[in-house]
């Protein structure tokens, strides 16, 4: 007997708990601010071994609470997975395939020889205590003072305090200024030119730390975030680092749909190296750089910006919509560099809660995605990017529409018009006068400021 292919989506429209489980024997996971949950609801379960995130999948209310047997079998599978992804004796670090996942392998010999699985797991889950003073954390914000305040509070609780926290206020009214005042270690900057890339670049120019990490105002970093970012940079030569973005809560239909139907900001729990083999695998049809991570949880070596320039101010929220982050990763890869994904660096994202907000977000994502593909094609002559615009994306719309019809995923289907609209809006960049030749001087002008108007 078979059963229909499992999906990640449950009955749409209902609020879900986000439940955290520590699979260490006898442990319960407690994350500050995440205690609240309502009984009798479906849940997205996130599994940990101490501070090491292991995996995530949805559980129905009937599947809770998890019994001891279930916990142990999960612990066994997750531990085996982590070990084969992280133990150099089993081939770590693993290289990302074209879809961003890694192929877990082990050999009979290695498996037989390996000992002390729980000790190894404990050691791997041991929180980083790396000194983060060489790390600057940049937060670009625009008219979300309450969220920003929570974000700054979480940053003040980091186990390894960063060298500097810089808030770049992209609002017209400087609404973030009062939030930042009186917070030690927080620098406030105002960037009047609208656009996330402008704000990011202003922040980069303002700091001189070895590492630069970005997070968003609607994000709460895990207390070990900065320490894990620095630890990860110590073990890889990669110029860019990304981490795991977990949903903070799934209280509304929009939040649930974004996480469960649209995949949220990813759900990979094994580290991956995005190097030249990853880039080469899909370059001819548009390298899938968006698989590398999310702008809500990314960091760079500062030297990267000296080498390849700053964020493209044509891209990103406030300009084309998004993808200024992935275009940066594209530039890194296209110029011979590498990116690294380390899920131990965790942040929690507060997804858009209202449906119209989600719809316009999805539209902006698609418009930004198309614009970045055009830019990547223009900059590097990689025609694969245009193949994605004109062939893959329309095919993806059709397939998704069909799939959501067949599987009754109504919420997913309702977002397709927004995606198509975003795609059409993105296409206009193809013919917009001056836009395609308008790569901003900003990008290579690290020292200068303010001279990069169109």
């Amino acid at each position, binding site marked *: *007997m078979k059963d229909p292919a499992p999906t990640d989506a449950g009955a749409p429209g209902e609020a879900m708990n986000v439940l955290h489980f520590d699979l260490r*024997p006898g442990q319960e996971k407690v994350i500050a601010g995440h205690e609240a949950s309502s009984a009798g609801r479906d849940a997205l379960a996130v599994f940990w071994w101490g501070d090491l995130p292991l995996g995530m999948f949805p559980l129905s*209310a009937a599947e809770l609470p998890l019994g001891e*047997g*279930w916990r142990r079998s999960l612990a066994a599978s997750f531990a085996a997975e982590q070990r084969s992804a992280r133990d150099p004796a089993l081939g770590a670090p693993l290289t990302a395939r074209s879809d961003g996942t890694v192929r877990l392998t082990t050999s009979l010999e290695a498996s037989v020889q390996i000992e002390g699985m729980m000790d190894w797991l404990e050691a791997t889950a041991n929180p980083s205590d790396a000194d983060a003073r060489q790390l600057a954390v940049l937060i670009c914000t625009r008219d979300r003072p309450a969220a920003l305040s929570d974000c700054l509070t979480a940053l003040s609780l980091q186990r390894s305090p960063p060298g500097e926290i810089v808030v770049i206020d992209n609002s017209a009214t400087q609404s973030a200024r009062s939030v930042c005042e009186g917070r030690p270690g927080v620098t406030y900057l105002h960037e009047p030119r609208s656009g996330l890339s402008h704000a990011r670049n202003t922040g980069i120019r303002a700091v001189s730390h070895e590492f630069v990490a970005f997070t968003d105002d609607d994000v709460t970093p895990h207390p070990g975030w900065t320490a894990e970012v620095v630890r990860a940079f110590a073990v890889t030569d990669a110029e860019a680092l990304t981490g795991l973005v977990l949903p903070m809560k799934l209280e509304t239909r929009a939040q649930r749909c974004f996480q469960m139907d649209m995949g949220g900001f990813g759900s990979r729990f094994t580290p991956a190296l995005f190097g030249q083999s990853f880039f080469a695998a899909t370059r001819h049809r548009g390298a899938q750089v968006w698989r590398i991570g999310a702008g809500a949880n990314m960091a760079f070596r500062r030297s990267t910006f000296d080498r390849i320039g700053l964020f493209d101010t044509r891209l990103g929220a406030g300009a084309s919509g998004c993808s200024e982050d992935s275009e940066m990763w594209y530039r890194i890869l296209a110029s011979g560099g590498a990116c690294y994904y380390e899920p131990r660096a965790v942040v929690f994202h507060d997804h858009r809660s209202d449906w119209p907000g989600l719809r316009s977000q999805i539209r902006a994502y698609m418009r930004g995605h198309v614009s970045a593909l055009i830019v990547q094609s223009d900059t590097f002559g990689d025609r694969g990017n245009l193949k994605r615009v004109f062939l893959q994306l329309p095919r993806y719309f059709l397939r998704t529409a069909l799939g959501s019809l067949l599987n*009754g995923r109504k919420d997913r289907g309702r977002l397709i018009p927004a995606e198509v609209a975003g795609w059409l809006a993105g296409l206009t960049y193809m013919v917009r006068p001056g836009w395609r030749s308008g790569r901003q001087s900003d990008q290579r002008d690290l020292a200068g400021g303010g001279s990069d108007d169109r």
Partner: protein
Amino acid sequence: MKYRLAEIELSNPLEPIRLEPDETGIGLAARWNDRLVGFCMVECALGELIGIDRLRAIADEHFAFGILNAKVAAELDTHAPLAGPLPSLTVAICTKDRAVRLGRLLDSLVAVKANSPFAHVDILVVDNAPSDETTREAAARYGADYYREPKVGLNFARNSAINNARGALIAYLDDDVVVDRGWLHGLAAAWRAAPGAGGFTGLVLPFRLDTEAQILFEERGGFGRGFLRREFRSSSLRMPLHPVGAGIIGAGCNMAFDTALVRSLGGFDDALDTGAPLPGGGDLDICYRVLRSGRSMVYEPQYAVRHEHRETIAQLRRQYWTWGLGMMAFLVKSWRHDPACRPKQSAMVRWWVGDQLKALGKAIVAREARDIRFAWAEFSGGIQGLLGEYDRSLRRVATIRNAQS
């Protein structure tokens, strides 16, 4: 066409395996420190000597990950053993006129009973409308309890077992299996890890792969449910139609239940799994009802048996036909008795028909005559099941019941 069935213990050094001159492949079950970690089938040359390198490559691909998994599981068990008193256990074997196979099964049971984690284990043989005394004699030889169920039909026999069982836990075995040496320990571990579960199912490996039909059946998935423990509750966000697709939970030839629970649910539906002409659906139905009652079902791979698959292609085709028939008869019955689940039930019928047609279409495109006939068998069985088979079966069992009373 004949495959060697072999078992390797991976904690020992690999040793080459020499196939017999008439063997064309191997079905390899692997253990790590006695724990089953994998099974795979590999086609070889006639009478090939399967060298260590070849075996290592097979193990790398199919078993190495299972070893890591088994190591963590073992460490967790050592760290905090799941102990506690086990319930009394009745092993129930429903059989009809197959004393030789019954003897084979009882042999394997006696062996595992000698080292039983359960304090109280009794074996109960239910002889279903027998035509001679051989089953009674076999049961007597092994000191098993014996009941005769005159009403012909597997689920009549299963109900007779549940009514006469002394154990708080009842483990059903078909007479065409033998138990793995870890069977009782697997069931004990499964129970201790989930003492509140309503039922347990286990791994079903092939008993022999001597004919083309047996090899084909195993290659097409067999009864395999994999080597990872799984737990099922009354709904799942990962399987939208669960628990209606009860087939993924396990197979009727190796399943155990909380005796009191099954009694309180009214036992097995004797209009399903009646033997010909409706020899299926009974296991789906009981697993489904256990889940719907709010109790969980646990699949535990260490609770393993070996099943003697159908010998001929014609028998195999008939098996697929019974799968379709049993599945749809079960769905028709559930539709009638469990209206709350109707959206899932009708979605399952739609999905099933689509899936079957897809398989049929694929076989037709590939011009694989045999696959076409397998697919057609399952599909036509399902259609017959949809078209009133459950009602016909109800009338048949009423006649059987009346004849006996």
